[in-house]
């Protein structure tokens, strides 16, 4: 019809055309019908599995129930770390209808500051939309309830009742237990991207015991399958599998003692270790100043971190394991044992005139006036350096080093800790290896009074003390087990031990250097040994006074009761200005073991002077620091610059 010159259309032609074209129309309709039927079949049959899965993943929302973290217990079963109910509020940005309005309302309900509200708005803008953004955690019940009852009007807001880590004694256990924190991307990848790890609010052990026992403490997550609408409203619970809480970890630590020792260290920077002389149980391993693991676990603020970093008392270092010090005279009982083992008669004496010439240099005794005639007993309880200078040269360094190692110095112990700095017990072979130089007499002289190359950590000092006290090869342990270990004898003659015990008792209870360390208790005597370690040469600073960081380290090792050793203790105070900074602490800690009430009374008097407990002082220090940091322009710390200029 359309070909060539247009023929004039007639009714018949139009009728004909209608018939053909309506056939075409019908065929198109039929064709589309077939197409639709084919498409329907394809969707419902060929792709059924795929879409069934998608419908199911639409319908069912699987949420993990994070397992409650196992408690960390002290030896009596009291918690050193537990969990407290934590009320938190999150928002899911995708489900929010009116962001500004909701944020403003949350701000009122949760009493957020203007800065917090601004931060929240920013976090929501930057979020990917489907993962929850934390609004607040650690809420009081009233605040939490205020939000909960208004949930129907606050679209996208989720309230959750979870758990957060709680450390009842705060900073006292900081270094020992470590802390928990949110998972880093690296940690997440290392664990095959376990979904549990990125559950909002979920935390893992980051340091100390929390990290070492992460797996047993963690437990198994539960799951909750719920049917949800497109809007996120939960229609019904389909299935809930309860979480399996983590297993508790019980330590040998005596919680109250750990706290007492930490607080007793007071304003000093130092550590205190107490061990059981029979079992090797570490009863306390306090290192102060410390951080508050609770505040670390909530996610430490930038300012708090800066404050801890800047502190010259290194609150971020666990001094029990990581602090290395020249032990000073605390090694003299050990050296005396080495002397006797080498056959030295304890009655053999030497005249101390305040110094001894070794080579072309005079080594002074700490008592410049001299001690007169000194035998071994006096050598120990008067801590006469000349006695040890003299006989150490005769006996030789190798035998002293041997005894040092036998008693645990330089040793790394099999403990579940993040790391130990095990220091140095020097001997001729070591010096040759390390410096390529021959051992000299003055090296022996230095080492024998715990100076020079000799470096130990406080735990080693405690182990040494426990071994001297018991005569057994005590190994420290941190994890409490039902079976108490049995340790072999060190093979040191009992009369040698008795001799040293008596001499150490005389340090405290006799005419010795630490008379003020006597226990205020009837019938219980403590034996000990003082130690003062120089940090810099006497030509730089006197050691007792002067700039803090040049002052002498103060040490004290002790065990009690002296006649039936039960507890061994080692205190190390950095730059304490001598052993007098250390032995009062050892005395009070030891007192606490036998008469807690008496010891606490003393501590409370001290804390009144110091301005509160360790936790209180830390909190106040932080508040002051934060204030100073947040208003740097207001008053440019004029006092501080004055001090430096002086």
């Amino acid at each position: 019809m359309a070909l060539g010159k247009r023929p004039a259309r007639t009714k018949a032609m139009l009728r004909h055309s209608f018939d053909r074209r309506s056939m075409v129309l019908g065929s198109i309709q039929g064709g589309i019908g077939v197409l639709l039927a084919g498409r329907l079949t394809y969707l419902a049959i060929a792709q059924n599995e795929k879409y069934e899965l998608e419908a199911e993943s639409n319908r069912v929302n699987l949420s993990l129930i994070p397992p409650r973290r196992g408690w960390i217990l002290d030896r009596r079963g009291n918690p050193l770390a537990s969990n407290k109910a934590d009320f938190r509020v999150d928002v899911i940005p995708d489900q929010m209808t009116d962001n500004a309005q909701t944020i403003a309302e949350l701000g009122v309900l949760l009493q957020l500051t203007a800065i917090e509200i601004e931060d929240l708005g920013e976090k929501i803008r930057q979020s990917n939309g489907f993962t929850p953004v934390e609004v607040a955690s650690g809420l009081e019940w009233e605040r939490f309830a205020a939000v909960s009852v208004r949930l129907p009007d606050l679209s996208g807001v989720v309230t959750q009742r979870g758990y957060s880590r709680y450390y009842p004694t705060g900073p006292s256990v900081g270094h020992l237990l470590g802390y928990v924190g949110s998972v880093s991307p690296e940690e997440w990848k290392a664990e095959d991207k376990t979904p549990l790890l990125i559950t909002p609010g979920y935390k893992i052990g980051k340091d100390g015991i929390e990290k070492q026992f992460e797996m047993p403490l963690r437990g198994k997550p539960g799951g909750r399958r719920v049917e949800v609408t497109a809007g996120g409203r939960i229609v019904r619970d389909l299935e809930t599998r309860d979480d399996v809480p983590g297993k508790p970890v019980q330590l040998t630590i005596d919680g109250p003692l750990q706290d007492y020792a930490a607080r007793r260290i007071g304003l000093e920077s130092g550590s205190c270790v107490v061990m059981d002389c029979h079992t090797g149980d570490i009863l306390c391993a306090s290192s102060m100043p410390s951080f508050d693991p609770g505040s670390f676990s909530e996610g430490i603020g930038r300012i708090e971190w800066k404050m801890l970093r800047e502190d010259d008392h290194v609150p971020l270092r666990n001094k029990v394991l990581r602090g290395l010090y020249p032990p000073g005279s605390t090694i003299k009982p050990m050296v005396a044992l080495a002397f006797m083992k080498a056959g030295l008669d304890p009655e053999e004496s030497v005249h101390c005139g305040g110094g001894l010439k070794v080579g072309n240099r005079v080594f002074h005794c700490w008592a410049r006036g001299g001690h007169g005639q000194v035998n071994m007993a006096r050598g120990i309880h008067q801590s006469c350096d000349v006695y040890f200078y003299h006989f150490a040269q005769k006996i030789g360094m190798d035998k002293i080093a041997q005894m040092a190692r036998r008693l645990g110095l330089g040793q790394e112990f099999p403990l579940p800790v993040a790391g130990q700095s095990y220091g140095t017990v020097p001997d001729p072979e070591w010096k040759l290896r390390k410096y390529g130089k021959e051992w000299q007499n003055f090296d022996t002289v230095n080492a024998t009074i715990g100076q020079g190359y000799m470096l130990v950590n406080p735990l080693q000092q405690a182990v040494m003390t426990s071994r001297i006290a018991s005569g057994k090869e005590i190994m420290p342990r941190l994890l409490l087990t039902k079976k108490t270990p049995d340790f072999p004898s060190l093979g040191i003659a009992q009369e040698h031990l008795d001799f040293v015990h008596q001499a150490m008792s005389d340090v405290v209870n006799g005419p010795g250097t630490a008379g003020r360390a006597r226990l205020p208790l009837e019938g219980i005597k403590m034996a000990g040994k003082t130690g003062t370690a120089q940090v810099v040469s006497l030509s730089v600073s006197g050691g007792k006074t002067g700039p803090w960081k040049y002052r002498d380290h103060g040490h004290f090792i002790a065990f009690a009761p002296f006649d039936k050793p039960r507890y061994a203790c080692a205190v190390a105070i950095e730059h304490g200005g001598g052993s007098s900074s250390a032995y009062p602490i050892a005395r009070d800690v030891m007192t606490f073991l036998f008469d807690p009430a008496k010891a606490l009374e003393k501590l409370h008097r001290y804390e009144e002077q110091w301005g509160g407990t360790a936790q209180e002082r830390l909190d106040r220090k932080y508040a002051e620091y934060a204030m100073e940091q947040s208003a740097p322009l207001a008053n440019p710390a004029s006092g501080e610059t004055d001090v430096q200029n002086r």
Partner: protein
Amino acid sequence: MSQSFVPDPVARQPWQVIAPLLALVLLGAAVLYSAAGGSMALYATSHLVRFALFFAMALVMSRIPESWYRALAYPAYGGVMVLLVLVELLGAMGGGSQRWLNLGFMTLQPSELMKPVIVLVLAAFYHTLPAAMTASWRGLLPALALIGAPTALVILQPDLGTSLAICFGGFVIMFIAGLPLRWFLGAGAAAAVITPIALFTLLHDYQLRRVTTFLDPESDPLGAGYHITQSKIAIGSGGMFGKGFENGSQSHLDYLPEAHTDFVFATMAEEWGMLGGLFVLLVFGLILRWGMVVARNGTDRFSRLLAAGMTATIFFYAAVNLMMVMGLAPVVGIPLPFMSHGGSSMLTVMICFGTIMAVERWSAKPRTFT
């Protein structure tokens, strides 16, 4: 014959189509009942009541003689045009777009009425046009004007789906009226060039987004592609036999948008499966085939064009809606006849249905009485 049992006026109705249609409407009511969460009152009752009313209307229409239809064609067209302008004015006064006129007892969408009316007026136009003029400008321009005027008004609303439906109905009449084929080919070629340009200039943002996401719905699963994706999930997850009555999770948990209107087919397919879907296709197939047979048996040009055009209008509804819900066409917001909840669209398809019944009557009369 069945005269002895059934009265003649009843027996003369096209039961081979009405019976499946009733089944389809009942299925629609069941789906709406389920979509409302097991409530008749929300959608299903009004669906059935409307169908009853409009079916009665269709029966009445089927008894109207052909001469009335022809006589009323132009006045009806004029009337609906007035309503369209009225809607436009009301919208302008209200400070936004408006598609409805509130009649008190129901809201009327005049653009819906234009779908059958454009078919009616063009059938009347070509019926009166001398055969020889069919291939001249006099057979083309008045028709284009008749289509163009309402289309322009509806596009202004803006309602892309309805304006396409009006154009479709109009062009189908022009096609079967016997206009030269090369005009259609030429227009098709021109459309192929102009459409992309028009798409990016004339369409509103949300309309354009629907078109682009149609091409790749998964690219934006939570945005504009959401509708198509969720609809496919509903249909696909239904499988062969469906999840069972009132067990569709996609519709009941609100994943499926417009579960009771535009996406009612997906709601149905999720619960009744592929078999339910094929049943719907079969019923539409029966209705459309019946419409085309009636058209071909038409005794004159007017009735043939009218019946074919009305059939095409029903077809357009069903085809575009089904292609949309199965991911073969963009989301244009066209309901599924006889199943979707909504008064205006049901009114339109029942007008089409009644008109086809009327044409069948006109053609049958001579046979019955000679």
